[in-house]
């Protein structure tokens, strides 16, 4: 396995070992015959639990308006009709052109297997680790499904997958090398000092390889006005697009602010605008590559079906996935709608999950990168059954 090089690593015994060309994957691109293909995947983790029932409102469900006197999304109120059944929240209006172009889709009433305790921490852990764990209070996991998937990607190198931003992303943590780069990353040294740095790093293979790659990335990213002043949705997306135009095939970043317990109409505006801005920036930044791109947005769980006493919503279960990109087959709201009658709800409070979001993530990996079904079911999402493809992609 090519990936093992990096782990066993050089420097088992320190500097005395000397240089070995195969020691660091970045140094040994030539040894990889195959390439990871031309498709691109962007995973956006929406932290804090997005209210899927506000983002894509099931306005034709007769119970919906009653349980959400202030927070329902419909064509009459704060929304845009999608397909005669669902409406898109007005704060995501910037995404409507994508819908009309067949480049935006949703999967409703999905979740991970995580149930009951509704903790952000455990829920995100389950979302990113992709494991079977049902109950909360588990030990934080050690690796993420997107990292494990890299093992199935032929010719993956350290720059193939990039976690963008300052947040630690379990999703891409693990045995396989993945890059972590933030839009405001700046080597902050003059070109002359950087040259000196490369010189003093040269005798240490581990540092030399990393320094070379870091300065290259820094230089290549410097072309568009230097590092971002701040880390926000737009700069995260712009950097992701830039990396994906180069050697990277997978990018992941997080957008927060979705924990809307109070006065949701006000508090959800910013995260929704940010999400729309991020997707817009990705499309612009990727240019023609957008045709071969899928953006998949996932969140740890949904929110309560009924609004709460402070015009907000609390932690729920069934949630929403958002897909965007030129690689989609059409614009559609997928998923088996469970209904919103009290008896339809999970524990009489949350949208009932009718599908496992990991299944869709697995099909996404399979479609974009040709990963084998057996390996996806065994190594990436242990224990899932991929079942039928929803054919989200063309």
């Amino acid at each position: 396995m090519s990936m093992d090089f990096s782990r066993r690593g050089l420097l088992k015994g320190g500097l005395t070992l000397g240089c070995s060309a195969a020691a660091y994957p970045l140094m040994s691109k030539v040894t990889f015959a195959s390439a990871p293909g031309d498709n691109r995947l962007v995973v956006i983790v929406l932290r804090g639990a997005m209210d899927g029932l506000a983002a894509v409102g099931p306005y034709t469900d007769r119970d919906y308006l009653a349980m959400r006197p202030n927070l329902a999304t419909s064509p009459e109120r704060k929304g845009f009709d999608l397909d005669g059944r669902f409406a898109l929240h007005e704060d995501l209006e910037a995404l409507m052109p994508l819908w009309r172009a067949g480049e935006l889709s949703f999967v409703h009433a999905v979740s991970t297997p995580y149930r009951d305790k509704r903790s952000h921490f455990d829920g995100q852990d389950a979302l990113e680790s992709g494991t079977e764990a049902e109950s909360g209070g588990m030990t934080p996991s050690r690796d993420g499904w997107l990292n494990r998937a890299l093992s199935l990607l032929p010719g993956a190198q350290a720059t193939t997958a990039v976690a963008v931003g300052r947040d630690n992303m379990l999703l891409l943590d693990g045995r396989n090398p993945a890059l972590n780069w933030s839009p405001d990353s700046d080597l902050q040294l003059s070109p002359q000092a950087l040259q000196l740095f490369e010189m003093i790093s040269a005798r240490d293979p581990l540092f030399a390889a990393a320094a070379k790659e870091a300065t290259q990335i820094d230089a290549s990213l410097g072309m568009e006005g230097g590092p971002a002043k701040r880390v926000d949705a737009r700069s995260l997306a712009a950097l992701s697009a830039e990396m994906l135009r180069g050697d990277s095939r997978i990018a992941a970043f997080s957008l927060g602010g979705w924990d809307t317990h109070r006065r949701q109409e006000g508090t959800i505006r910013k995260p929704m605008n940010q999400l729309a801005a991020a997707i817009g920036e990705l499309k612009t930044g990727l240019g023609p590559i957008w045709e071969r791109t899928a953006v998949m947005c996932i969140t740890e769980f949904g929110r309560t079906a009924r609004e709460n006493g402070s015009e907000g919503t609390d932690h729920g279960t069934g949630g929403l996935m958002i897909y965007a990109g030129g690689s989609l087959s059409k614009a559609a709201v997928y998923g088996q709608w469970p209904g919103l009658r009290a008896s339809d709800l999970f524990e009489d409070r949350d949208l009932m999950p009718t599908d496992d979001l990991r299944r869709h993530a697995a099909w996404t990996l399979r479609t974009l990168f040709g990963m084998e079904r057996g390996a996806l079911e065994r190594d990436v999402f242990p224990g899932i059954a991929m079942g039928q493809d929803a054919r989200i992609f063309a």
Partner: protein
Amino acid sequence: MTLQKDTIAALRFGLGFRPDQRGERDPDAMVAGLRAVAAARPIVDAAEDERLWTELQEFREAKKADRKNKSDERAAMIKDERRDFYRRLTRVWDASLARSVEAEHAFAERMARFWANHFSVSIKFPAHASRVAGFEDQAIRPHLAGRFSDMLQAATMHPAMLVFLDQNRSAGPSTKAAKREGLGLNENLGREILELHTLGVSAPYSQQDVIALAMLLTGFTMRGRQGSFVYRDEWAEPGRFELMGESFRGGSQQETLRALEMLATHPATARHIATKLAAHFVADEPPARLVEALEADFRRTGGDLASLSRTLLTHPDAWGPLGGKVRQPQEIVVAALRAAGVTAKTLEGRNDPFKGLTLQALKDMGQQVNRAPGPDGWPEASAEWINPGALAIRLEWAARMGEALAARQLDPREYAETALRDALDPQTAWAIAAAAEKREGFALLLASPDFNRR
């Protein structure tokens, strides 16, 4: 190049040189340092524990009280209480960092870090943070020169661990209490004790052993959600349990402690600890003879940690060339401040010239205090810490640190000599002198392989 013994002692076994300290080098003195640190006044003593607890309660009560009230005033009050709580926590973290920066018994500080990482606990939720903050002081440090078994026991019974690995909610499946309170067996702590804390994952234990230990641990819980340790008889699963071929009686705290003692002194544990210790201090794949010597010492003494440390410090293979390890972010931050002769006083309060370069920098560099990624602690292998993105963040930190050091009127060439003495490569020294600006000279040193390895 043969390095001075002082240099190896300060870089491999210590926290880096300070200009105002001679540095430890004599193994006997370093072992004595373990005793001194074990007996030293903790940062999170009973009074601090109480203050953290009080801040936490105030935060919680603010959240609980007056729930119907949706006013912004109430929201602001909760925010204030939250801030006060985190301020108190941050003070503990700052003090802990400053303790390392000033420490004379640097080897003991390193050992404290090593063991705290061996028994890694990380924050699960705010209330848990108040317990995690005191874990190292309360469960680890007192036993630095004592027996491994005692440290295992203290770590296992500490509320931070009980919560972290879900032991506080584990009850014997056949007990009435379990049925009444809807609890059941949770294997988490039992599994991690076997896999991580004692025998090690490659040892010959089975799922049956995991269940047996988990059963024996039922009853280990705490008063309330965050209170102190308590043994709850009515939660303890009765019966006999076979663990690693030995039979133990359930429903007895004494028997559970006897089981922990058996695990702590097991030959597999000796091997596991010996390998891990050598890998931490010397090289990712440590010299076999050193591991064997440590293992033999552990087995002979039944896990006497002072003796184990002495064996480490007196073994010839432990004094070989430096460079086998990458310094972790916590180490470079402390070493950089030590080389500048910074005192705890400098780091205190609003005018801290290193603000953003310590705790925040650790977060940026992927080693936020009390937030290890899992029960297996921070990764040990060098390659885990150096990749293009990680190096870029180290470079940024080095550049900003360079500005702060330049502002203190230090000379980068002298600073480099202080920090590394004869471990400073002549080429690096040349590059530092060749830098166009002082701050870049500092940055080159702080980002160099010389400084980032040990």
